[in-house]
């Protein structure tokens, strides 16, 4: 039985990592009685282990709560969690589109960060009612007034109604819930008999149910047994199950306008249920899809190869399984002279890449070599055609290239005024074009640059953190492509090209990169029985050379009864290290070498 829309509130929480979003969500669950303290294992909403370890929400979650407000009415609150990392900002925008309001949680000891700001703008674009919450007021360093002032200055948000809270101690939780009732508007679009339109804001793969879809009904009613269609993907299914999490799953038969819930119906994969798509009735379809759908495209590509070529099929299976659950992840077979057969994989960003890599190793016990990530270059050929190159070793010969364009990101950096100089220097060094410097307050600065994504990929974030002693935060989005003087740099080991290490780089930086990379490889490549020459080359021209001296022996120590365990353990460790090595010609190259490019500065 669909609820009265008047008594429904859909809201989410916007916060920077570590500003206490998950703790606040837990506290709200506890306060409304959805979760006992015992059940609320720390941070219930972050479901996956990896998320728990990294403290980052990767997949959005939604929970329905019943709250008896001070006005005597019992409201249905749908708390829609949003992913907390810039790689997933599209998913954030769709989660927000399912809401009428958002809590803006700001750490009262830290102030606003770049990522928070980006999400607040997404929320403002969607006309959401924003309720500022100043968290962690129990800490002695909390400065509520200063942070309020900052929110007003930087975000332009009226903070007179801001709530001071501590998710840790429970201060302010009731005020927050009352503010949600009073200030967040009930859902619009109230005709339960209109043609069905519902927004997909999350979906995941469940091995029993197929793809499970979280949706927000905008018009009409969705019922169990109904045949529905996804407008963008054209997939259809009959709903066999529907319900909501409270936070444990509860089943029901219909969802009315403004309500949030999940549906399932033996949908094969999440590629049929893309986030942002519109669900409509298959027999009486609505002509109009909901606005904002985007087919998200991977921005970062890397090769993933099994260390042991016998694991190729296992890797393919594992990638296929991960893809079932991740519409933004793509892969296709690839081969490298140095690394054999593997896959070229596309990710939303670096974090997304790390997560996938870690899951492959942890959940599927695969020994992998991952190459340094690359962006997608647009190569304009002299015959007028354009090709996308996401693997530097596939760059066509120089003579057929007219120009190469690279993806440019608008990067917004928030930093205390003291570190502005260091941050500007870093951006300039990375071929950035300054777009603006704005003093948010007297000591907080917002720096905006257009930067090539290729430059952002390589330890930019680490460098930014160290240039600002950890105080800078950043956000980025694609703004377009730009041509530059880009060339391919190759690395050779004993004359054999390590195609997996080829990279596309700006001409002015090629010599330095080549030298740095050679000397880094010299450190990483272990001494072997013969000399190993490491060279960097542009075309056929060698621009840097290093030599790894030959190792003449390993060890010839004694080995009697008391030495056996120690020696065996040593060799077991050695063997484990070798597992991660790849034979290139005569030379054993450790996994690390393929990421050497990430380790130079």
């Amino acid at each position, binding site marked *: 039985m669909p609820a009265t829309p008047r008594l429904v509130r859909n809201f989410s929480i916007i916060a920077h990592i570590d500003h206490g979003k998950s703790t606040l969500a837990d506290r709200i669950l506890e306060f409304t009685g959805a979760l006992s303290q015992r059940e609320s294992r720390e941070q219930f909403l972050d479901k996956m282990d990896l998320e728990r370890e990294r403290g980052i929400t990767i997949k959005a979650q939604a929970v329905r709560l019943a709250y008896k407000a001070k006005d005597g009415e019992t409201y249905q609150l749908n708390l829609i969690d949003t992913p907390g990392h810039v790689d997933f900002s599209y998913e954030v925008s769709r989660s927000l589109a399912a809401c009428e309001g958002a809590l803006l949680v700001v750490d009262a000891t830290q102030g606003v960060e770049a990522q928070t700001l980006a999400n607040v703008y997404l929320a403002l674009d969607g006309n959401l009612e924003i309720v500022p919450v100043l968290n962690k007021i129990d800490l002695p360093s909390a400065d509520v007034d200063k942070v309020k002032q900052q929110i007003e200055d930087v975000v332009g948000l009226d903070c007179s109604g801001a709530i001071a809270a501590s998710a840790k101690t429970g201060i302010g939780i009731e005020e927050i819930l009352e503010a949600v009732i009073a200030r967040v508007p009930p859902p619009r679009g109230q005709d339960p008999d209109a043609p069905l339109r519902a927004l997909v804001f999350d979906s995941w793969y469940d091995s029993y149910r197929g793809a499970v879809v979280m949706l927000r009904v905008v018009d009409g009613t969705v019922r169990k047994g109904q045949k529905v269609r996804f407008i963008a993907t054209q997939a259809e299914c009959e709903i066999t199950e529907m319900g909501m999490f409270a936070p444990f799953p509860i089943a029901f038969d219909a969802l009315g306008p403004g309500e949030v819930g999940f549906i399932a119906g033996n949908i094969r994969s999440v590629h049929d249920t893309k986030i942002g798509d519109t669900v409509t009735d298959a027999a009486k379809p609505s002509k109009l899809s909901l606005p904002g759908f985007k087919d998200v495209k991977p921005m970062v590509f890397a090769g993933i190869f099994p260390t042991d070529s016998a694991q190729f099929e296992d890797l393919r299976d594992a990638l296929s399984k991960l893809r079932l659950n991740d519409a933004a992840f793509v892969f296709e077979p690839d081969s490298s002279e140095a690394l054999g057969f593997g896959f070229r994989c596309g990710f939303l960003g670096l974090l997304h890449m790390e997560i996938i890599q870690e899951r492959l190793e942890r959940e599927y016990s695969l020994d992998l070599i991952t190459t340094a990530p690359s962006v997608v270059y647009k190569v304009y050929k002299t015959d007028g055609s354009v090709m996308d190159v996401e693997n530097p070793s596939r760059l066509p010969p120089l003579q057929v290239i007219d120009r190469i364009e690279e993806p440019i990101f608008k990067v917004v950096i928030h930093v205390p005024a003291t570190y502005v100089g260091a941050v500007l220097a870093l951006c300039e060094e990375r071929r950035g074009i300054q777009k603006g410097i704005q003093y948010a307050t007297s000591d907080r600065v917002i720096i905006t640059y257009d930067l090539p994504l290729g430059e952002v990929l390589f330890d930019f974030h680490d460098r930014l953190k160290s240039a600002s002693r950890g105080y800078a935060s950043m956000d980025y989005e694609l703004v377009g492509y730009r041509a530059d003087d880009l060339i391919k740099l190759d690395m050779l080991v004993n004359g054999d090209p390590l195609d997996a290490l080829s990279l596309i780089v700006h001409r002015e930086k090629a010599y330095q990169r080549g030298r740095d990379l050679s000397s880094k490889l010299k450190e990483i490549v272990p001494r072997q029985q013969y000399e190993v020459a490491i060279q960097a080359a542009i075309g056929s021209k060698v621009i840097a050379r290093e030599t790894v001296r030959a190792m003449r022996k390993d060890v*010839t120590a*004694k*080995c*009697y*009864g008391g030495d056996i365990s120690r020696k065996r353990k040593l*060799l077991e460790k*050695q063997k484990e290290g070798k597992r991660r090595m790849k034979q290139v010609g005569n030379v054993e190259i450790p996994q690390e070498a393929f990421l050497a490019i990430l380790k130079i500065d």
Partner: protein
Amino acid sequence: MHPLGVYVHFPFCLQKCGYCDFVSYETAPAAAGSGATLAAIDHEAYADAVLAELDARAAGLEGYALASVFFGGGTPSLWEPRALGRVLDAVRRHFGAAGAPPEVTVECNPSSLDGDRARALVDVGVDRLSVGVQAVDDARLRHLGRLHSADEARATLREVRAAGVPRLSADLIYAVGDQTPASAAADARELADLGVDHVSAYALIVETGTRFGELARRGRLPLADDGAMVESFFAVDAALAEAGLEHYEVSNFARPGERARHNVGYWRGDDYLGLGCAAYGTLAQAGGAMRWRNVLDPARYAAAARGATPLAPAAEGGVVATVEALDAETRLRERIMLGLRMRDGLDLAEAAAAVGCEPWPRERARAAERLVARGRLVREGDRLRVPHEAYVWVDDTAAALF
């Protein structure tokens, strides 16, 4: 009947050598003024403790034939031969009734060995002495922290030979500081000329926790580089081959029939019973093997061995400091690591059958193929061995086959 080696550790020395990482304690004569408080050795009490441990351990052991007894240390030539003899007798009584007489070796230092001591040891049943000569050069001996001179070492070997010790081995350390390969070879040649049947030659390895380790850490120990070490390895090998000693294990050379049977037992993966303070033992048991080590402190060891529960963990008043369970796969890895050290290599199928596991999983077969292609390994059916010129890579080769 399975062959059994018995190892008895004697944890005392006159003076600790700079490179040594064995468990040994300096005794009264040299320790005066060093700040350590060390009592003179109580020879009989230590023997009583070892005998008590032996009684406890032997009670549960059946189906073994005693192949060898090895007194190591420390410096077991410091032990009163009568006390050592009591231990040896008891070991033979427990295990030695059947089969060929066991090999009985005692490690000796020239500074605590002469003709009389050698005769006394032979009288209690010892048939092999392993003498820690280490170098035949006074400066190098001083650097190593040895108490004897080159001439004393020569004299000792001659006396011992004359005393009628049936089998004689000497230890040599090479690649010490800037020692040349020619000098290493000269030392080896001289040992052979002095009439030893067996030489153990070790490249100097600097271990942490030793005086050398400490010096090296501070950059104050001259060290031979890889290349010099390898050249010395082959120079020693050539000198001893010319003198008729076969290079039968990475660090060991013997005249025909003179291989150290006790040590060959280790390299074949035979069981060994360790007795005494800090001794290691490894015995097969259902589905694998158990390795243990006794407590390192002599006084604590002696008290525990003679206590009510000698075989209990140290925390419960026994002698056992650490225990390691070895499964079949681990045992096979050890047999590969040890077997490849020998000139004859090992029969992998046989070794795998003995411990109860698969000899040739796919990964190992492929690794063997690659090693053969690189000249690191010779494979004849199931027999694997390391060619002589690839001896210096034996650890890496073994690891590849793990």
